């Protein structure tokens, strides 16, 4: 059962990933990309990573794709089509992609994966404690670093949105 589901998801993902880069209509590519991301969420559900799957749906499908669709809505007219790349570019891209794929496949097939017998799904409690613990194996440092990064991004966005005049004077009074 799981095997069949996995193959269905995998085929969906591959087909839409190819469609996404080969489609000449911008919004269609975005929608194909959305299907790929949903497929990944499906794989997470399949291996019982419910939390990760929900985050995948919220952040990628609900956040990033909506943002992309928004920008397409703003800049792109329905009759416009993307240009077809030159042949040389196509060939170079194909070679690079095949090389990347080869490296991935070689790594995956040479790595000995251990089959884990007991498949407990991770609970929210464990995730929360893992996030905020400062003992060995805790993630408090990366968590804080990322929050500083987010703060910097937010301040940057505000400065850009404020306009050019004030951006030189009103430097970010940030950190913490």
């Amino acid at each position, binding site marked *: 059962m799981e095997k069949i589901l996995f193959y269905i998801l995998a085929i969906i993902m591959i087909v839409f990933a190819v469609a996404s880069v080969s489609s000449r209509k911008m*919004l269609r590519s975005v929608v194909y990309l959305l299907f790929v991301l949903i497929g990944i969420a499906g794989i997470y559900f399949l291996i019982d990573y*419910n939390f990760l799957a*929900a*985050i995948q749906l919220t952040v990628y*499908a609900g956040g990033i794709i909506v943002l992309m669709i928004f920008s397409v*809505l703003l800049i792109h007219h*329905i009759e416009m089509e993307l240009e077809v790349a030159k042949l040389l570019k196509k060939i170079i891209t194909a070679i690079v992609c095949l090389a990347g794929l080869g490296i991935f496949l070689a790594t995956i097939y040479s790595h000995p994966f251990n089959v884990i017998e007991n498949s407990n799904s991770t609970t*929210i409690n464990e995730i929360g404690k893992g996030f905020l613990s400062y003992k060995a194996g805790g993630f408090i440092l990366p968590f804080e670093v990322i929050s500083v990064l987010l703060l910097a991004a937010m301040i940057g966005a505000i400065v850009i949105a404020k306009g050019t005049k004030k951006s030189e004077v009103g430097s970010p009074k940030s950190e913490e």
Partner: protein
Amino acid sequence: MLLSITKNIHEWLFSLMPENVASIVEMTIIAIIYLTGFAVAGLFLVLMERRIAAWFQLRRGPNRVGFHGILQTIADALKLVSKELTGTIKADKFLYNLAPYFVIITALLALSVLPFTQDFQAFDINIGILFLIAISSIGVIGILLAGWSSNNKFSLIGAMRSGVQTISYELSVSLSLLTIVLMTGTLQLSEIVEVQKNGWLIVQGHIPAVIAFMIYMIAGTAETNRTPFDLVEAESELGAGFHTEYSGMKFAYFFLAEFINMFIIASIATTVFFGAWLSPFGITESIPLLGIFWFLAKTFVIVFLMMWFRWSFPRLRIDQILTLEWKYLLPINLVNLVVMAVIVWLGLTIQF
């Protein structure tokens, strides 16, 4: 009783067929039950809306088809099925046809995690509330696609407004639910109901919980694009908004999904604030079958509240909507979250 019925069917199926086939058949049966419930609930809600609108406006409302107009929406649905599907010439046909399914599938997915009774819950996932939030953030993609692919500027404006509104108010919905999660300590919906056996969470959390509930209702109404937040399909400005170019069943999908979303918002409120299928003061605890009655009764009271909003308030302007969210609801919500954390920390919740 319900449990024994489902258990019997489960055992009967597995005795009849090999395991794989039986589980597929079982899933199909569950899906059909949910689809039927989906359609019936949608049609009933449309009827309820029209009757309540009529009541508020001192009219009679639909009262010709069937007893007191009960069959009116079924007749409407039959009409919609038989209608021609039209579209604009230069529409992006693929996305145009895909958009309604986004909206309707997300609505269906959200239904699957709701605990209608103790045993009647299709998918008791351990991140229930997070899953609901994740799913509801995908629904807006359908609206955006519908607006863009119709190749109609009114649709496009409607879709953009919807996007802005939904993304902003999603924050408030999530934060107000998070306030309640502080008390339960779990995201799993069945466990949240379990916690409420010591009193519904709106009582347990008293003041901050009531504030959270108010914010949730405002934000929930905004997220379903209903009046006073129905800029998305402001009839006086935009035709019918994002679904101007849709006709027949495709329009019906949007329409049904809108009503089901209202039902879902109300059900989440019921589950999180009002104890889902738990009866008040445990008066019918010995009859678990009545759980569905209590669940639906509470849900429809909240649905009625949302309909009451719709026929009482005038429409807001887009800047007013955004001001309300970012300058009022969000700060209130954040303060409320801290207050709730302090209350839980000091053990000031009311327990029965």
